[in-house]
């Protein structure tokens, strides 16, 4: 269609949308970096009142973390299926990825509610504030990811199906999704384990 003219494209050899996503993710590192830094600064300080370690349930969060990590696996499977030209499998794996993401989100909502009932609320102290803003910011990213995955899945329902390039493509969403997963590995370690 439009590529038949004198205009060359993409001297870097990376598809433009994907490149844009890489640039976007590089700024995301700064977003999360700032949040984590604040968290670490306040973590070392003495503060009055309730602590996360008084309320958290590491086995529960470990399970939901595992669920989120598995969603990266299903994302890879979706990508693999699309490379093999298998539209149906692609949709199945996409939907599984979205579901796993939704399970993680549900877990986070449950966890927040539990904390809330035990008196660990946003304005309890500096520690709870940083905790909620940090993990909430990540949760928002997972939520957006789930929306993107479902959008992708519904585009896949149309007659032409998904393709590896063009439009809202799968690699574009996959990059984002893997990034959000990797960030969670860091957050889980920093917030819960250290």
């Amino acid at each position, binding site marked *: 269609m439009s590529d038949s003219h*004198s205009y*060359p*494209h993409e001297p870097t050899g990376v598809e433009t949308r994907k490149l*844009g996503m890489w640039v976007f993710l590089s*700024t995301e590192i700064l*977003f999360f*970096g*700032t949040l984590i830094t604040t968290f670490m600064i306040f973590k070392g300080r003495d503060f009055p009142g309730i602590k996360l370690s008084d309320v958290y349930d590491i086995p529960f969060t470990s399970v939901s973390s595992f669920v989120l990590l598995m969603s990266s696996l299903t994302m890879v499977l979706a990508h693999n299926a699309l490379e093999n030209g298998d539209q149906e499998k692609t949709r199945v794996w996409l939907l599984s990825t979205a579901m796993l993401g939704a399970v993680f989100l549900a877990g986070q909502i449950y966890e927040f509610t539990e904390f809330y009932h035990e008196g660990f609320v946003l304005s309890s102290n500096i520690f709870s504030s940083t905790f909620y803003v940090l993990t909430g910011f990540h949760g928002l990213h997972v939520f957006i990811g789930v929306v993107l995955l479902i959008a992708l899945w519904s585009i896949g329902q149309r007659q032409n199906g998904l393709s590896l390039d063009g439009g809202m493509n799968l690699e574009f969403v996959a990059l984002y999704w893997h990034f959000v997963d990797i960030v969670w590995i860091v957050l889980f370690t920093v917030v819960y384990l250290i």
Partner: protein
Amino acid sequence: MTKIIQPKKQSNIFKRPSSETGIWSWITTVDHKRIGIMYGYAAFFFLLVGGIEALLLRIQLASPDNNFLSAAEYNAMFTMHGTTMIFLAIMPISAAFFNYLLPLQIGARDVAFPRLNALSFWIFIFGGVFLYSTFLFGTAGAPEGGYLAEEVSRLGSAPNGGWFGYQPNAGMKYSPGTAMDYWAIGLQILGIASLVSAFNFITTILNMRTKGMRFMRMPVFTWMTFAVSFLLAFSLPIIAIALFYVTFDRQFGTTFFLTEGGGDPILWQHLFWLFGHPEVYILILPAFGIVSEVLPTFSRKPLFGYPAIVFAGFGIAFIGFGVWAHHMFASAISPVAQAGFGLSTMVIAVPTGVKIFNWLGTIWGGKLSMKTPMLFSLGFIGMFLIGGLSGVTHAIVPADTQQTDTYYVVAHFHYVLFGGAMFGIFSGLYYWFPKVWGKMYNETLGKIHFWLMMIGFNLTFGPMHWLGLQGQVRRTWVYAEETNLAFWNLIVSIGAFIIALSILVFMANWIYSRRKGPEAGFDPWDARTIEWSIPSPTPVWNFSKAPEVKSLDDFWHMKYDEDEEGRPVKRDTADALLLELEEEGLNPKEDIELPNPSYFPIILASGLPFLGYAVIYKSLPLAIVGVLLILIGSFGWGTEPLEEEFTEDTENE
């Protein structure tokens, strides 16, 4: 005959906008040139607003013990002046240059993501409107037991905690009311606009370069755009998070920056200046780029030390992230940190010096043509040098603690941001005026503008150095007769009005020349870079076919050869070449397909201010409206292709 292919009028959710003239064509445009022009006008409007705020400040300070403005109004005015000039004037004027010129300089037909580009612009507009709506809806109350006992007028109902929003002063306790929330959320929205455009420009430069446009053949302005985009991409997230914290502190009872809950006000300073210092380079590097284009053209010599200028630009950008605490020498930071940041501040003067010497090397021995852009560029070098040198004095910690929060600092950063950035910007506005409008500005008026501004500028900001060293405190509302500061303050205020006069001259020139100026032709300056190889005003399709670049300053080498001594000699074919280029540029031989206009960027952007109001007024309906607008915008965006399918029957010859 060339086919300009019309898109099929496909109805999605909305019918695709299709008008090519009139207001809708501007609202729905995704053309980088139109977006650039809109950025320019919007930013200039805010420049005037910020300028009026400055004039009000100067009237207040023109005589001792004045009460032209109340204290509350004065606080609001200096806060809004700083915020406006930085976020709503200089940054978007730079964005106007980026938008218009970047694709032209790298030989592209548009930016990488045309609709995202429109989105950035509209977010900027809505962010600006949101911030300024504080004059209508905002409230700035008096802290309990504070000195602001009087009733606060509308003029004073604006953010009043300074453009740096230091905590806890800008927190709820000392800045009650909603004005500072407008500030925090307004900056947040404006930050999104800049972030989005940063992704766009980085991707554009990486991926949209035409054949043969290797990195080391890119014009310096493109290089500086690249550096600025990285600065934006890596510094804005930091202030975004910090502003989140502020909003949470003010609205949801957290204590990130408030000591009573275990928070840390110094953390705000660190986060703010980690953004704020790179921001200084965000403001100045575009001017460096402009000047690096103007000087070689009007000296008729290649830029001296092109690689050095490029690497110095990136050196500045990189070191710019390591000097932030020099804004905090008077805060509680350790002596080791003071020494370290003092040193890094001196180090950053090195690449800046490299640039200054390269510019001097460029004009050295050149055949100078003293046109208005050249005058402004030369003025830039001089004024920026003064600002740069007074900046180095801040690296010396003991001296800096004396100068902190005095008019010396005000003088310093105005020499850098006005004498530097604004002079560079005016140089660029005159230089590319014929490119954008196809007309020539009036040279006499241009020169009057330059000299008025040069005189007014130095009268305004020069005396501030000694006012500051005599102890006039920054942000002071009144000063007593006995301080002996009255004389120079009056001079400063007169200077400010001379600047205002020069701006009027500029506007008159602009408005007159746009209509009645002589035809400029497409290469009025005998310029060097490829944006001058296409007709002026630039056709919608930019280049009728993708240019192939063979060297740095490609356009110049098409026109000129060198003799044995390296002097430029015009090629015999040059004139014929220009005619051919013009003919070719106006009559493309291949089909032109351009991205289609779209409603969705403006719809998506319009949701953000609603979310802002929703946070301030804790209103669910407003939040729902905002989220709905964003959802409609993104859904429509996602389901609408960038370019409609082209079908045979809608093509017209």
